[in-house]
């Protein structure tokens, strides 16, 4: 291609050669690299992200940690205040060094609930690392003598999973649905948005309650034939609902972006609709998407807590932050204030939500090139 021939320009050979060399060495900075750099410079957001990643790891690796059983109760030590002592009671039977693998597997059922094979692996890893050592009741115990620290960590698994499911649905379905609808416009847009309206108009809480009571009678069959249990239904419903607002928000943005000249320019350049969507439109709505996402995730976490509170979400022996809150209510009484039962779960939830908000704020700034050099 002749454009590479420097002789064609009003430049002397040396300059042209230097210019060409420098340009070739030059790597384009992608939006993400740039955003990453800006995020690192924004201290609070960076710490928030570190906190969230750390917390996520903690909850994922819960079986590996030397925690007590979140399920086994010990009525001798109900509502025990936080202590650094080793403490006793509710030992994990699964940690018995004498036990063979079949017995361990059976004990795990009792110490926890039905766990995945990955979690079984993590627990055997824990046996190797920590032996039978486990933490004391560092955060106290609840009214059944269950270890609060362990419950909070195991409970975060549900909350994080639910919010990830909702975030993923919002991102994947919501953003692309909304962007496509806005970009194509016309009759298709109308059809797609009316579908959203219809889904929107269904009272969501009732659907959940209805579905969960409905499957109540057919649980056995459903679980055997479809592998559907209550939790999965819960995720399905969250997935079906939480992308709706996102789709609307994104569509609105795309409608205004569609007529932006750089989108026209891309079309004129010969880019396909899909290419324009991915490269020009979606990145430009990202800042709004992220802000909305940081509002969605807390909402879903609270929603999960709410449903569990009502007894419609996660079922014991499994544990979630909502269930811990339910247990916490019994600790609130005018005679003796068992503050740890309330404070620690609230702190865990509060810190997570705060970190999400700070991170969202920082990400929004980081994704805006105009903020470059201003932080």
């Amino acid at each position, binding site marked *: 291609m002749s454009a590479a021939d420097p002789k064609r320009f009003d430049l002397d050979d040396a300059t042209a050669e230097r210019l060409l060399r420098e340009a070739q060495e030059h790597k384009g900075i992608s939006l993400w690299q740039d955003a990453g750099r800006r995020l690192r410079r924004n201290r609070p957001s960076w710490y928030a992200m570190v906190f969230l990643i750390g917390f996520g790891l903690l909850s994922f690796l819960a079986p590996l940690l030397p925690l007590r059983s979140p399920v086994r109760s010990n009525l001798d030590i109900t509502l025990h205040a936080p202590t650094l002592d080793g403490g006793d009671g509710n030992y994990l039977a699964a940690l018995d060094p004498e036990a063979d693998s079949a017995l361990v597997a059976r004990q795990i059922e009792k110490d926890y609930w039905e766990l995945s094979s990955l979690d079984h692996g993590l627990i055997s890893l824990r046996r190797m690392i920590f032996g039978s050592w486990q933490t004391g009741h560092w955060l106290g115990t609840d009214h059944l003598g269950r270890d609060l620290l362990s419950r909070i960590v195991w409970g975060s698994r549900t909350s994080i999973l639910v919010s990830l499911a909702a975030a993923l649905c919002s991102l994947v379905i919501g953003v692309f649905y909304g962007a496509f609808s806005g970009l194509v416009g016309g009759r298709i847009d109308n059809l797609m948005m009316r579908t959203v309206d219809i889904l929107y108009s269904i009272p969501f809480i009732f659907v959940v309650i209805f579905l969960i009571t409905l499957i109540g009678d057919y649980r056995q069959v459903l679980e055997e034939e479809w592998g559907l249990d209550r939790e999965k239904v819960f995720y399905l419903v969250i997935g079906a609902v939480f992308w709706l607002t996102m789709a609307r928000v994104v569509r609105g943005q795309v409608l205004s972006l569609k007529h932006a000249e750089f989108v*026209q320019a891309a079309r*004129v350049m010969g880019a396909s609709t899909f290419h324009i969507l991915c490269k020009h439109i979606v990145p430009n709505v990202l800042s709004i998407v992220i802000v909305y996402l940081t509002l969605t995730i807390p909402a879903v976490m609270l929603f999960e807590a709410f449903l569990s509170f009502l007894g419609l979400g996660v079922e014991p022996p499994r544990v979630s932050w909502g269930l811990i809150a339910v247990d916490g209510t019994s600790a609130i009484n005018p005679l003796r204030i068992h503050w740890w039962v309330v404070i620690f779960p609230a702190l865990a939830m509060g810190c997570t939500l705060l970190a999400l908000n700070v991170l969202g704020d920082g990400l929004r700034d980081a994704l805006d090139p105009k903020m*470059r050099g201003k932080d």
Partner: protein
Amino acid sequence: MPLLSVKNLAVRFETHHGTVRAVDGISFDMEEGETLGLVGESGSGKSVTNLALLGLIPSPPGVMSGQVHFDGQEISALSEPELRTVRGNRIAMIFQDPMTSLNPLLTVGRQMTEVLELHKGKSHSEAMRLAAVGLGEVGLSEPESRLAQYPHELSGGMRQRVMIAMGLLCEPRLLLADEPTTALDVTIQAQILELMAEVQRRHGTAIILVTHDLGVVAGTADRVAVMYAGRIVEEGPTHQLFKNPHHPYTQGLLSSVPRLDSDTSQKMSSIPGTPPDLAEMPPGCAFAPRCPNVQVECKSERPELLPSGVPGRSNACPLFASAGSAEADSAEAHP
């Protein structure tokens, strides 16, 4: 064989208010390396003509008819994927407002390489190299560091240079410039126009310059086509057309250009009335309601664009054939 040959191109939009004929049967030819100025007031169909040349009329509600023959290919018969290989590659377009025609989230380098990666399948580093060359060619200093900058870090003139460089990266045969200087101040305007002329000299690119600024056309275009209500009313070499306009609309347009040496005590002349509603066009000449020397037949018969006797010129006013040609010929003889 001309580079671009447009025959009877028409674009109509079916709207709630009726059929809007944005472009109503226009024909013109362009040679390689030629600049055609497309002038007319807002809503006369200039930009729609440009979009139609790229097959970018949204349908529905738009309907396009007529033939566009470009570089041995029938553009109007191509499928959408085939059209995409033409757009940006063999026909490029630059836009009016450089402030909004660059994606604010992408660096200049990313944006420029997009077109090369799309059409020429270049690797990223190779594309970056070509982009830097392109930026150097349009006169941007330190092109290699510009590649890492975001659009908001550049001035309006610089962005328009980036747009032009981007348009030229694939070495198109035809460049559609849709009011490329309207959003720029006068000194930058002159620089950009000079740049486009230079680029044309080097690459032999044909340029269609859409504008409503007669000054811009006078300085740069080889030929001018004057559009009114979706039709070309007069076409000819720039110099002759400006010196001796044949069509009453062109005459009105030229006489309403303010002049520095005009008498300030007199009101500026203007064309009375407003352009017709494109959804309710008069049956005859579209300009008839505003024409100073309108005849009865003007209101019933639609005049065609016909050669006007002077070589290279054509005009859609039947009155001219009888009234103006002798006078025009004498004027042409002594320019």
